[in-house]
């Protein structure tokens, strides 16, 4: 993989919040189609690293770039999708509308939007919940809907922050299955070893420091 092939490249990228070091300077690259798990306990810096990779935050040291995509403005909604930690559906929109939202933001044609939403919901097993509001479905279904929203956009890179954090093992497995069903590169931050075990490449983070890179 050349530097230009990388979807995202962290070069000594670190992040501090005041006196607190959330992430030590880190070097990391993710190539197209690559599957990667960021593993570590709560507060270890996984979400911080994911936010930097998603372009949602800026490093205080080092740099983050997206050589194969372009600059930050090109990331979302067409190239990078983010599955956020915790409920992230918009309360006043139905499940289908939530899934459709990034497509509408990307100016996808209305007819195509309907097809892609239907496919994404089918992938995560939520076809029957399409017209329900977020407050009317369970926590696991909420998380699957968030995954469906990421899948529907047909992006190059999906960044998922603890996508199975509050789910039982069966639902967690279904969510990871859905994420792995796409051809996009996938980075999942998790503290769950069962989830981490599903990935070929795993990076351990502890106290903001990437301490160990493991390949299955």
């Amino acid at each position: 993989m050349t530097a230009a092939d990388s979807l995202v490249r962290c070069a000594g990228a670190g992040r501090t919040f005041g006196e607190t070091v959330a992430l030590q300077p880190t070097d990391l690259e993710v190539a197209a189609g690559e599957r990667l798990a960021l593993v570590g306990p709560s507060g270890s810096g996984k979400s911080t690293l994911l936010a930097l990779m998603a372009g949602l935050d800026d490093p205080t040291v080092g740099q983050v770039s997206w050589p194969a995509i372009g600059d930050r403005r090109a990331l979302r909604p067409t190239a990078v999708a983010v599955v956020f930690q915790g409920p992230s559906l918009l309360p006043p929109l139905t499940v289908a509308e939530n899934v459709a939202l990034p497509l509408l933001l990307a100016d996808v044609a209305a007819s195509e939007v309907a097809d892609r939403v239907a496919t994404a919901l089918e992938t995560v097993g939520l076809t029957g919940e399409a017209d329900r509001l977020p407050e009317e479905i369970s926590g696991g279904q909420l998380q699957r809907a968030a995954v469906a929203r990421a899948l529907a956009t047909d992006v190059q890179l999906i960044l998922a922050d603890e996508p199975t954090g509050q789910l039982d093992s069966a639902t967690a497995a279904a969510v990871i299955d859905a994420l792995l069903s796409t051809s996009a590169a996938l980075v999942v931050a998790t503290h769950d070893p069962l989830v981490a075990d599903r990935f070929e490449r795993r990076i351990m983070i502890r106290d903001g420091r990437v301490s160990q890179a493991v390949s299955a």
Partner: protein
Amino acid sequence: MTALWIKGLVSRRRTRLAGTALGVAVCVALLASVGTFLSATTGQMTKRAAARVAVDWQLALRPGTSAASALIEVRRTRGLQQVLPVGYADTTGLGAATGGGSQQTGPGKVLGIPAGYARAFPGQVRTLAGRGSGVLIAQQTAANLHAAPGDTITIGRRGRAAAKVRVDGVVDLPAADSLFQRVGAPVGAQPQAPPDNVVLLPAPTFARLLGAGAQTQLHIKLSHALPRTPGAAFTDVSGRGRNLETRLAGGGLVGDNLGTALDQAREDALYASLLFLFLGLPGAVIAGLVTASLAALGGEQRRRDAALLRTRGATTRQLVRLAGAEAAASGLTGVALGLGTALVVGQLAFGSATFGGTTLSAVVWGAGSALAGLAAAVAAIVVPGWRDARSLTVAGQRRGAGRDHGRRRTALALLALAGSGLVFWQASRNGYNLVLAPEGVPQVSVNWYALLAPALGWLGTGLLVHELAQAILQRGGAVRRLIRPVAGPLSGVVASSLRRRRGALAAGVTLLALTAAFGASTAVFNSTYKAQAEVDARLTNGADVTVVDSSGTRTAVPRVAGMGAVEPLQHRFAYVGADLQDLYGVRPATITAAGKLQNSWFAGGTAAELMGKLAARADSLLVSEETVKDFQLHPGDLLRLRLNGRTVPFHYAGVAREFPTAPKDSFLVANASYIARATGSKAIGTFLVQTDGTAPKTVAHRLRARLGTTAKVSDVDEQRRVIGSNLTAVELSGLTRVELGFALVLAVAASGLALGVGFRERRRTFVLVAALGARPRQLGAFVWSESLYVTLGGIVLGAAIAAALSLMLVKILTGVFDPPPDVLTVPWGYLFAVVAVAGGAVGAAGSLTLRALRRPQPEELRAR
């Protein structure tokens, strides 16, 4: 735990706390300002009413009562400052040989004025020419006799030779009506007009010339350190008067001029209270609603917080205590801010930095306003908190209260509007007499039933607007079309979002509509009042400048610089049966424009139509409504008037309620040419002078210089000042100024602040949309669509409510209008200002929201 909670709120929910505190502050400031208004008003009303009285009491002694013994009793009266005896005698007529001819008048009055009278009662006699003491003659008398200071006049005495006196001065008697009142006689038995022929003699001269058979009145000046409210002052003064009469044991009757003025002020004070109900109370209620609405914007977050606390074992009592702490924090901050603001507003608008006239009322208004503000905060935060805390499940709390009472609300709205219409119709049929002050009845009361019309109107329109705003959102297609210009391809999903938030948005629309309606209706009422005050000034004065010829012989006025058109207005007196009325002879072709006649001054046709009737038939006559009623007249009926000793036939052609320079009731309008022919006199009496743009007071000054004391010249500027200093006018302008200022603040709070706080409370939603890749324009679709719907809906529906309310308000408060308006005066400038301020506030709220979303912090995505 409570302290920790408050600390957390201050650092994490600052916008919500500040928003609620601001709402409370507006509510408290408005109520306390109105308290200041009422306090300042009632106190000023008493003072002004007392100050207008020339002589507080006129004690008429019964024949045979000794003035000396009466004086002893009078001096025992509490608050007595001055008492002077004035002699009253009749003259058979006055005469003068001046200017190469001799003039003789009819019967008149001669007064014996004691030394020091002018100093003791400065409002009674105004010197126009010559000296202010000695032998004085009234201006009309001087005109009748062609007499001036230095001339000798004769005073006819019954059964004796006429007495000769030398005139020292010509005076005006501003309070002639009360000076020559028939003390003790009821209103209907009073003289219709004061005498034309009046001579004032020094007391010794009076005693020498007319002492035998003369009557004596004791003119009394009381201390004006009266109870603060007009009602209490009236009770005090009239009670003292009756006490004096009792002590005199039938020896004298008190003509209570001070009591009469205070009685009128009592009515004004009631109107002031009603103005509070109509203009102040809705504002305060709306301010309370704005507060509740701002506080409720954090309701969802509060429910989530409560749900989390409940999972960690918080009891219902603890949850309510935390809600109470939040209400107290924002409420107390708002109360302090509001009371401070009210003090400043009170000082600037009413010149009074206190909430009440007395310590007690200050405490009541101050504490009442504070309690109202705290109640608004408690109702908005603690009550929902307590209701939520009683829910057993966390899921239940997260769902919130979602039961829909739409149909019930619509039914209630329609019922309230129907009730309002019914009461309004019933009350309108009776002329909407809000303040009931029947002649001869000492008590003034308010027709509270009539107040149901606006109260139900506010309730009904509020509920209806809410349901309407929800119904529009329910129809997704219409909303999609409305927001397409700002939402573009996202209009569908944004419309869905709006539809599911219809409850909150409808509340926003309702609040803004009611606020706009409050501001607009108050402004329309205020402008209409001002316009009518201008009409009143013109009606009373007749024209820019009015010349009343004292001699009654003049047929033209001399031209002076600045004069435009001159319209002659014949003025005569005529008897309708036994009733002496003012008769005005007009030129029908020109008087409509020259007198700026208004349609509301006539009944049974427009001003032009009725003047047309006069033009069509020479002996046509317009009469007052009272005359129509008293004499059972029908159109075309023949009326025979006694005019200058002749009987002249007229035909009843229509009703005139008001006419330039005419008294309120009992006047007649006819063709000038017919009157001149019938009476053989072309004398005019009154000239309505329009200026060519020169200030009326300048033209009046020039005319006065030319005409001297032979004519009375008045100008509309002076009249405007007199009307503008009336009790209602002064206080109303202060109240409406404050109301209009608060309406602007409320418009900002109900639009920009409410939307801004709402956006802030839902910030995570917008952050999520931004994190999903929304460009600023796309984020703007969500923000601006909501803003557009609330603002446009609020302004449009508010305008509709304002139109209906303004009509109702003006109709209900007819009592403060004199004359009633033809049409409402719309203050477009202020209305545009309300729209601009609301639009500006919404624009600022939206822009700030979008600006803050440019780079959302990642931790906001994780926050719940």
